């Protein structure tokens, strides 16, 4: 006890010029969670005798309203100016008490949370004596730490009122539109020459069999003509600097080689001698070297594909308005934005790596993916919406659809269920069966997953029109060497019968996978990715739209597979969250930053070399200075300083020392 008395004297001497610390200690029972293992009364009694402690109590549930009121009352009645609550983790209820003391006019950083539940009572349930002894030490450490806690100011940082949206698919369009409607200028960057994304490629959307072009065109038109939205097509992100509220983004815009006065008459395309498979049409039709991806494409300006162009100059000569210009150069534009929404969407899984299905191999042209079937069925298709075999152009007498190609398959590394393949396969199966009642349509599935309103009805209606469902994942697609017919080998696992299904055409329901090129973009954004390769959300339940980095939000399938309705909802949420700091005009940052004692500083600059977010700079006098906005409060600079001149507020060597002596056995006296 002699040690303690000395300490008390010391603190009294030290507190003459500043206000004396008055600490309130509250020990929570948490029902039986803590009190069942730790002797809470003993802990509270022990805390009562610690220096500067003016109140020490224990209570059933500190996080309840009476518990929080107890903390508030102690401030009002006893003039407590630092609180220690020994209960659960800081993440769980630390904020509850910090907010409570802030309501009483005390800086919230003067609250010290001691975790005696997760770190003590729950993990030492068998040894109650030792758990109590540990709790005593932990509480003493908390009190020691609380004694020297300082106020941390919360500062307002002005934000740039503009947003960047990457990707102009349905998610990007929705987010751009929502942001612009809130009065925020938007820079919309699209990699391709047209906007609309995958949704424009579809024939019908489930479950209502609506035309996706009709659904999306008001949005594409609205975004393209919105006064607050600046659209960059054929553009990519070059670099991203800055942090939440103030980003600086470099955008690289590739030339279209057609000027904006293009009237979209199509003369150039008509005379172009080059023909290559259309990327937008999934190779189901051809396009020219100067082209427009599809009739309703926005922007309607034609685009020249420099890679395939033979530079015959025909298009320049035939253009009635002289819009074609081969001399256009790529340009780089730098924009300043406050929030970034990433909506780069997905890619359809490429089934070539599943060898037994022979997708993309010679002689297996009739094995296609669902997206290709969508293109075949669509009103603008080369086949006039007829389903025809790609190999010979005949009407298939039997179509087999294979589910879970690339999803629920650990052999290709995708364990997840894409969740929408069942729905679009059923939709397409039903459409095909209704068009050609004589054609056998079979769906080979592992499980049919059709949750949600109207989807089960869609499944049943497909069964009613005569679509056959077989439970089993096909092992192989083989080709009869004599007749050249395809056969799908599958076991019907419900009746335990091995089957060989004749298939004139096989449609693979390929998974949704992260888009190509997400790696470089992710590293420019400096956000984390999930193990499947999608960008990782901050919290799957509570914040599925924020990325791992503040100010960068995820919209749509870049976070994980989604259908269109989910994507639109997700994008709306991302837009609302991205808009919040911009509409408010500022963000609040806690100034938990290091301060430099220039009397001790020897201007060696080691702290600058170790600072990862580059928040420490050397000023013109050779002295290091801290950029308080860029600082991320890691404290890495502290041990690097040879003279201990740089100290992170509330984590100073002095404060940590007090905590360390309490828990390392030197300071605590346990009877």
């Amino acid at each position, binding site marked *: 006890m002699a040690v303690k008395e000395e300490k008390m004297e010391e603190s009294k001497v030290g507190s003459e010029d500043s206000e004396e610390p008055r600490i309130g200690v509250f020990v929570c029972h948490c029902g039986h969670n803590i009190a069942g293992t730790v002797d809470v009364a003993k802990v509270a009694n022990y805390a009562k005798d610690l220096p500067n402690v003016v109140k020490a109590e224990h209570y059933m549930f500190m996080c309840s309203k009476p518990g929080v009121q107890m903390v508030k009352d102690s401030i009002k009645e006893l003039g407590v100016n630092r609180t220690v609550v020994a209960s659960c*983790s*800081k*993440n769980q209820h630390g904020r509850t008490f910090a907010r409570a003391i802030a309501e009483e006019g005390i800086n919230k950083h003067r609250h010290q949370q001691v*975790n005696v*539940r*997760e*770190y*003590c009572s*729950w*993990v*030492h*349930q*068998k*040894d109650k004596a*030792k*758990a109590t*002894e*540990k709790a005593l*030490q*932990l509480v003493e*450490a908390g009190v020691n730490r609380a004694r020297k806690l300082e106020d941390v100011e919360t500062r307002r940082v002005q934000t740039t009122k503009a947003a960047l949206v990457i990707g102009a698919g349905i998610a990007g369009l929705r987010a751009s539109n929502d942001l612009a409607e809130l009065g925020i200028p938007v820079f919309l960057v699209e990699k391709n020459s047209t906007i609309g994304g995958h949704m424009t490629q579809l024939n019908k959307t489930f479950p209502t069999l609506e035309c996706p072009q009709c659904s999306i065109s008001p949005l594409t038109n609205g975004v393209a003509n919105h006064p607050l939205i600046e659209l960059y097509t054929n553009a990519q992100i070059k670099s991203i600097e800055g942090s939440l509220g103030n980003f600086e983004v470099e955008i690289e815009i590739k030339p279209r080689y057609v000027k904006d006065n293009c009237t979209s008459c199509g003369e150039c395309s008509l005379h172009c001698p080059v023909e290559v498979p259309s990327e937008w049409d999934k190779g189901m039709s051809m396009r020219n070297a100067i082209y427009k991806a599809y009739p309703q494409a926005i922007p309607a300006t034609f685009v020249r594909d420099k890679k395939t162009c033979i530079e015959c100059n025909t298009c320049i000569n035939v253009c009635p308005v002289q819009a074609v210009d081969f001399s256009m150069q790529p340009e780089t534009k730098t924009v300043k934005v406050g929030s970034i929404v990433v909506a780069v969407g997905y890619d359809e899984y490429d089934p070539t790596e599943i060898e037994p299905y022979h997708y993309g191999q010679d002689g297996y042209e009739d094995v296609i993916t669902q997206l290709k079937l969508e293109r075949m069925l669509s009103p603008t298709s080369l086949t006039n919406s007829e389903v025809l075999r790609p190999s010979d152009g005949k009407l298939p007498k039997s179509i087999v659809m294979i589910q879970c190609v690339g999803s629920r398959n650990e052999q290709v590394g995708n364990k997840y269920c894409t969740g929408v393949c069942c729905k679009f396969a059923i939709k397409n199966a039903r459409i095909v069966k209704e068009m050609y009642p004589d054609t056998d349509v079979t769906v080979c599935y592992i499980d049919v997953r059709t949750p949600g309103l109207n989807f089960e009805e869609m499944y049943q209606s497909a069964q009613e029109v005569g679509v056959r469902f077989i439970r089993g994942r096909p092992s192989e697609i083989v080709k009869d060497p004599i007749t050249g017919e395809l056969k799908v080998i599958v076991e019907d696992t419900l009746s335990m019968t091995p089957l060989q299904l004749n298939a004139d055409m096989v449609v693979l329901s390929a998974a949704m996978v992260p888009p190509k090129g997400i790696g470089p973009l992710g590293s420019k954004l400096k956000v*984390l990715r999930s193990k499947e390769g999608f960008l990782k959300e901050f919290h799957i339940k509570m914040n599925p739209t924020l990325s791992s980095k503040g100010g960068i939000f995820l919209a749509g399938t870049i976070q994980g597979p989604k259908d269109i309705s989910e994507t639109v909802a997700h994008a709306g949420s991302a837009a609302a969250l991205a808009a919040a700091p911009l509409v408010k005009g500022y963000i609040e940052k806690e100034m938990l930053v290091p301060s430099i004692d220039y009397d001790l500083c020897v201007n060696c600059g080691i702290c600058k070399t*170790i600072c*990862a*977010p580059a928040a420490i700079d050397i000023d013109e006098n050779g002295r290091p200075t801290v950029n308080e906005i860029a600082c*991320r*409060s*890691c*404290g*890495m600079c*502290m*041990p*690097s300083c040879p003279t*201990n001149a740089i100290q*992170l507020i509330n*984590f100073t*060597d002095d404060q*940590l*020392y007090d*905590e*360390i*002596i309490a*828990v*390392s*056995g*030197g*300071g605590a006296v346990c009877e």
Partner: protein
Amino acid sequence: MSNCEVPDEYVQERINNIVVFMCNECGQGSANTAGVARMAYDAAIRIIRVQCTGQVGPIQIMEALTNGADAVACVGCCLGACHFFNGNIISMHRIKLMKKVFKELGYSDEFVNQYTSRAAEGETAVGDFEDIIDRLTTAITEKGTIKDGC
């Protein structure tokens, strides 16, 4: 000491205070996850919250050892997953240097260690704690601890 049998009670008596600096992100997260899952570990473990393991320097480690800690450890995020870019790697280098210093002073370097854990997996934190205890137990039964001057 290695020839004679050391009773478990003696070992238990000798392990009292192990100071573990855990970072605010994965370190704390994994210990919380372990707590929620009620994964039991030795009661000698005392956790101190720091912002990042990169914040812990020789001063803190020596303070803990001189004030009676049996061992000191830093637990950070997995390598490459530091929430502050590279604090765990910097801490690893520091601990390596600390070990070197201890060796040159003639002490064992088993009492200062750097570990990593994953917030989603409480097992990782408990595994780290068990390793600290294992090293201490071996030291007590065979060579002697840092308190014995070994």
